[in-house]
């Protein structure tokens, strides 16, 4: 009754906006050549969208359910490896597993591609991505049984420890036939493999694919957060005792949030592997979790659009805008004495401190983009 018409109009508007954004990405992909100076924009979009997904999935847990977990890199690692293992084509397998005898000898895109053609390849990739999410979610369920009894800092430490254990296990030589030990997995299906052939012209979907993947997943998280389950997550975050007294099963809902968050962390891991073209356990250090946490905090804890903005700004700043600080020339100033390796991080840290000082609740606070256009209910957070 209340506002259903309004919300339908809003969801239609956002649907159109997302479609326009995706179309723009496809166009950019065709217009910008790899040699252009603007080609960094594409790189940022590719990596940034995957990081945005990771940040949003972490926000679901930390910002919406109030469970402070730092195991994200671990779940992303599981996702990246699952995706990589199931998409390495058979002819490349022996080269990749050069020191081991590969144990898993199935490639989803290859098997389905042989059977169904290009569509089969695509389905195979999608299946591998879903498998990556499921693997992370199943592990999350197992870890969650003991760990979700903990609260705040203790939960953070336990999940952080878990992520480190996962990284160590995946590098373990005995698991080499599956994980390739501490050597990287490569040669699997990357984003630049996605092309659309229409008649004589080839449309590259290199940037479109990761952006689409992130968009679809984030859209699901938005839907979940605004559903009755998402509202219960927020209730648990606001007051656990009251939530339980009002009939919300804490164990079940925390586990649900943890598993869904981990599922999308796994998908983000798969996306990361797709973008980088390499899956190596040593890349998924706890520093990665902190980077993602930083994006969440910068964007605003409890704001999905905030996480996306945070991730994009973070990646753009560290990969593109501030590059010059490391390589001698920044904003046309040539000062190799100051702008040398490592200076970028100094400037970056200062910027982050300034942002946190001036936006104490992150860039978006707990608001979403559409909220900026309308007045907040009550005076609530006004005046901050």
């Amino acid at each position, binding site marked *: 009754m209340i506002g259903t018409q309004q919300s339908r109009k809003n969801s239609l508007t956002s649907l159109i906006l997302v479609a326009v954004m995706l179309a723009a990405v496809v166009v950019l992909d065709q217009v910008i050549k790899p040699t252009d100076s603007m080609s960094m924009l594409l790189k940022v979009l590719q990596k940034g969208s995957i990081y945005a997904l990771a940040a949003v999935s972490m926000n679901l847990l930390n910002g919406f359910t109030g469970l402070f977990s730092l195991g994200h890199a671990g779940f992303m690692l599981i996702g990246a490896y699952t995706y990589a293992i199931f998409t390495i084509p058979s002819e490349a397998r022996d080269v990749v597993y050069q020191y081991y005898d590969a144990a898993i000898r199935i490639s989803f895109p290859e098997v389905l591609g042989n059977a169904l053609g290009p569509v089969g390849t695509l389905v195979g990739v999608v299946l591998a991505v879903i498998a990556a999410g499921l693997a992370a979610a199943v592990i999350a369920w197992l870890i969650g049984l003991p760990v979700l009894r903990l609260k705040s800092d203790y939960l953070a430490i336990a999940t952080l420890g878990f992520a480190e254990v996962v990284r160590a296990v995946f590098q373990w030589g005995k698991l080499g036939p599956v994980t390739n030990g501490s050597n990287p997995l490569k040669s699997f299906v990357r984003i630049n493999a996605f092309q659309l052939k229409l008649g004589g012209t080839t449309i590259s979907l290199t940037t479109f694919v990761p952006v689409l993947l992130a968009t679809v997943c984030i859209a699901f998280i938005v839907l979940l957060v605004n559903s009755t389950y998402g*509202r219960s997550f927020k*209730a648990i975050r606001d007051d656990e005792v009251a939530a339980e007294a009002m009939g919300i099963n804490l164990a079940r809902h925390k586990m649900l949030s943890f598993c869904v968050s981990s599922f999308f962390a796994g998908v983000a891991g798969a996306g990361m592997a797709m973008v980088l073209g390499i899956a190596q356990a040593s890349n998924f250090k706890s520093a990665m979790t902190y980077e993602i946490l930083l994006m969440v905090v910068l964007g605003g804890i409890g704001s999905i659009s905030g996480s996306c903005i945070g991730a994009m700004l973070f990646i753009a700043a560290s990969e593109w805008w501030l590059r010059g600080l490391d390589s001698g020339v920044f904003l046309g100033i040539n000062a190799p004495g100051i702008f040398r390796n490592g200076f970028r991080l100094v400037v970056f840290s200062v910027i982050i401190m300034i942002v946190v000082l001036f936006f104490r609740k992150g860039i978006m606070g707990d608001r979403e983009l559409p909220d900026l256009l309308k007045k907040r209910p009550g005076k609530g957070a006004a005046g901050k």
Partner: protein
Amino acid sequence: MSTILKVENATMQFGGVVAVDNLNLEVNEGEIVALIGPNGAGKTTAFNVITGVYQPTNGAVYFQGERIVENHPQGKLKKLYKGEHAGEYTRVLAPTPDHITKLGMARTFQNIRLWKSQTVFDNVLIAMHCRTHANFLAASFRFNRKEEREQRDRVARLLETVGLYDVRNELATSLPYGKQRRLEIARALATDPRLLLLDEPAAGMNPQETQELTAFIGEIRDSFHMTVFLIEHHMDLVMDISDRIYVLDFGKLIAQGTPEEIQNNKRVIDAYLGVAEDA
């Protein structure tokens, strides 16, 4: 009239301290029953035992004729146990509070516990979640549109009944104190209970607000066919609306009866009510 809630020989012991000692009480359907007593008498502890926040050390709780909570001293408490009826209870039944709420018992808190980042409307809506049938996938993809719409309609009606409809889009914490209390009761009602437990609903209220609340609790009983069990210190409220009163002192039940009986009970006057000096 059938008994809706029965507490049988419930003892709650924390280490060496017996907070609730061999409590026996019954609440009948449609009644308003009050639990009174001096500070620290164990009233809220008794509530927490009934609603599953604490597991009693010994004893049982029945709801709608069914035994929902039962426990006996275990581990270290086996030796320490100071209460009565040891050995009479052998099973362990310890449902979590959410489970008990789903059975049809809802409570409010002594210190208001609203979900602070949520609006008035959402506070009530979230409380209906425990009656939702859709799983999280169905809910995310909005297959439960009908259920959701029904819930929203019910919230609107409930808010109208309790007089909070015009502030539905305000943040819960921006409401004045009296309205927050009202909202907490509305939220408890949204879980579809048969029995409503109110823990000091009039705490911190001025006489006028207390009077309004008294009328409000009466209205709830009548319009929702609700049974109400409440803890309260405002004697005007208690004497005004209660059908029966239980009095706790140092964890023990020292009296029970109608408001008149309680007012004239010597033990209650000594322990709690005191003698009115200006009378």
